[in-house]
């Protein structure tokens, strides 16, 4: 490992020492410029808020969604309240009529199973009608009277009827099954209703906080005081529900009992499906707000599909710029909530809020998606720009390098090889001139004389071997007269050879020949004759 590092370092140093090629340098500058521009653009965009767009969008979407949800919830609950108030009035009328008819007060109905049955028979059709017409899964009425005052728990046992739907599913079947949850069983048998498996004859008013107080109050009209209970577990069953408690008010102001509708956790879940958007699943919540906490276990939660909510959590609320954060401790959700008044005249002030929640993870995934998209786009753009710059640099540099190469390879750069780039041409011109001057300074022959020499040298190839032999004697400095003695040939032969030599070398006389030879000798070019 260390060796590798050393190697790399050595290589790096080596590379640095070498001068960087034109193309590389140009590429580098281009790349730097691109990166700087990129960074600047990104900075600008983030200032302009392009990247926090999704947060803003989310806020818009959520505000709209919350408004819709809240409107729906308000409308839903209002309608139910109105129907319950109506029910209360009708029940009041019927009960009062019966009591007056029999000449008794409500107190006297206690311990009288027959009277209770009669009253229940009168109340049943109203309850049933309300159940059919209302967007809820149960309707009930509790009379402030009991079948058996002598029993141990008689003070919190009250007679009444509670009808519920037994089979709820996502889309309510056209003919839902009504089940008899509380009430005198004779009615169930008469109406061919199934008895709930956890049926009991009477209500346990201790299970409904605030019910007792409502029945003890003195009111003018039912609308004066009513409330939605917090979510309560239905005794011995796996279900829980919120009950609307509306007093049944007699004309003298006494409260005959309480009636209302039931929205079970399951019903609410089925009525308010999770809205699956691009940001994740949005869950609808109706829950009490206390100390900046949303108590889901005491309210109702819509369908939680796509999330890990189980409807029992307490969410700690952190306010945010665009949206709030809701913290269960183990998971976080983002969303918005709004207070909505759903009760009236309640003793303890419970603030109810409608909220929509999105799992933070799915939103984070969405923004991560967007971020990824941005990153991908930026990357692709960067790559394209880099490639572009590479090709541009190359096309810019290539003619220069080509002409420089050609420049190097040429021996006689007499003609100015135009490279298309003025600077290179100038350089070529300059270098050519300098070369020329340099040659002259070194005592080189002017060009036309050099030509003669060149020709002379070239023509030496025309000589035959025997002629070259004679020439060699001359080069060695011998006179004509010495040749016969040296070469053992006659003078005539020598003369004949001379004539030939002069003719072939293009000289007029021996003097000229010797001049050439002498000059060549001086230029050091004598070798060329051999």
């Amino acid at each position, binding site marked *: 490992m260390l060796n590798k590092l050393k190697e790399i370092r050595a290589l790096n140093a080596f590379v640095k020492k070498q001068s960087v090629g034109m193309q590389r340098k140009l590429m580098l500058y281009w790349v730097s410029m691109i990166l700087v521009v990129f960074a600047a653009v990104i900075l600008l965009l983030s200032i302009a808020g392009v990247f926090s767009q999704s947060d803003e969008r989310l806020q818009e979407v959520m505000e709209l969604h919350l408004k819709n949800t809240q409107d729906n919830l308000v409308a839903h609950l209002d309608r139910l309240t109105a129907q319950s108030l109506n029910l209360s009035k009708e029940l009041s009328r019927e009960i009062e009529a019966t009591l007056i008819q029999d000449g008794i007060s409500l107190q006297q109905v206690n311990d009288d199973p027959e009277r209770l049955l009669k009253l229940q028979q009168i109340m049943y059709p109203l309850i049933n009608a309300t159940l059919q017409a209302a967007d809820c899964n149960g309707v009930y009425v509790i009379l402030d009277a009991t079948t058996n005052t002598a029993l141990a728990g008689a003070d919190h046992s009250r007679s009444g009827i509670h009808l519920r739907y037994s089979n709820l599913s996502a889309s309510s079947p056209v003919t839902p099954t009504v089940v008899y949850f509380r009430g005198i069983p004779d009615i169930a048998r008469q109406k061919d209703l199934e008895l709930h498996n956890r049926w009991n004859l009477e209500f346990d008013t201790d299970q409904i906080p605030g019910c007792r107080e409502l029945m003890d109050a003195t009111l003018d009209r039912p609308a004066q005081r009513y409330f939605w209970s917090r979510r309560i577990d239905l005794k011995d069953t796996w279900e829980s529900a919120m009950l609307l408690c509306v007093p049944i008010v007699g004309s003298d102001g006494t409260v005959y009992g309480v009636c209302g509708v039931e929205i079970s956790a399951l019903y609410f879940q089925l009525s308010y499906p999770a809205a699956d958007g691009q940001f994740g699943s949005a869950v609808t919540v109706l829950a009490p707000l206390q100390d900046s906490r949303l108590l889901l276990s005491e309210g109702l939660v819509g369908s939680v599909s796509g999330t890990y909510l189980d409807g029992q959590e307490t969410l700690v609320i952190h306010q945010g710029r665009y949206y709030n954060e809701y913290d269960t401790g183990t998971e976080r959700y983002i969303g918005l909530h709004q207070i909505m008044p759903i009760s009236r005249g309640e003793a303890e002030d419970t603030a109810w809020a409608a909220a929509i929640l999105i799992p933070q993870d799915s939103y984070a995934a969405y923004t991560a998606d967007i971020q990824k998209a941005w990153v991908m786009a930026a990357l692709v753009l960067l790559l394209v720009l880099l490639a572009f710059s590479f090709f541009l640099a190359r096309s810019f540099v290539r003619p220069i390098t080509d002409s420089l190469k050609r420049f190097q390879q040429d021996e006689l750069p007499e003609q100015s090889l135009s490279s298309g780039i003025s600077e290179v041409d100038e350089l070529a011109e300059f270098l050519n001139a300098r070369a020329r001057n340099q040659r002259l300074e070194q005592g080189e022959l002017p060009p036309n004389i050099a030509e003669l020499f060149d020709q002379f040298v070239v023509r030496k190839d025309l000589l*035959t*071997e025997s002629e070259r032999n004679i020439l060699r004697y001359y080069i060695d400095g011998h006179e004509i007269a010495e040749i*016969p*003695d040296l070469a053992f040939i006659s*003078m*005539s*032969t020598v003369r004949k050879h001379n004539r030939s030599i002069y003719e072939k070398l293009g000289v007029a006389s021996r003097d000229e020949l010797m001049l050439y030879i002498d000059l060549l000798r001086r230029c050091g070019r004598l070798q060329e004759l051999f």
Partner: protein
Amino acid sequence: MTSLLSSHLEDCSTPQYFCFSVRCEVCGEYWYSSSIPFSKAAQAAQCREKKELYDAIYQREKLRAREAAGQEARERFSQCPVCRRLVCDACFLICDEMDLCRECAGRMQEFGEPVAP
């Protein structure tokens, strides 16, 4: 060359003039040098008492004439480098590679022009 020629010079002198000859070893023709008259030819003939004197002068002039003849022969005789014979200009061919006597040239298939037609 000169020494070679002097060894081949044949004396053809008379008491009146000096003359030498060289024989071409190829064609067998004799070449005669320019006669150089003995400057004291008349005197030699007349004055017999100075004969030795005139003989010495004759010898002295003959030597000179011999040298001159050698020079003249030098004009027209070559040595074939192959057979090493003394060859007159008519039998000596100027070839591309080397100048040869006519016989050697013919034998070795070298063609050329004779020095003298």
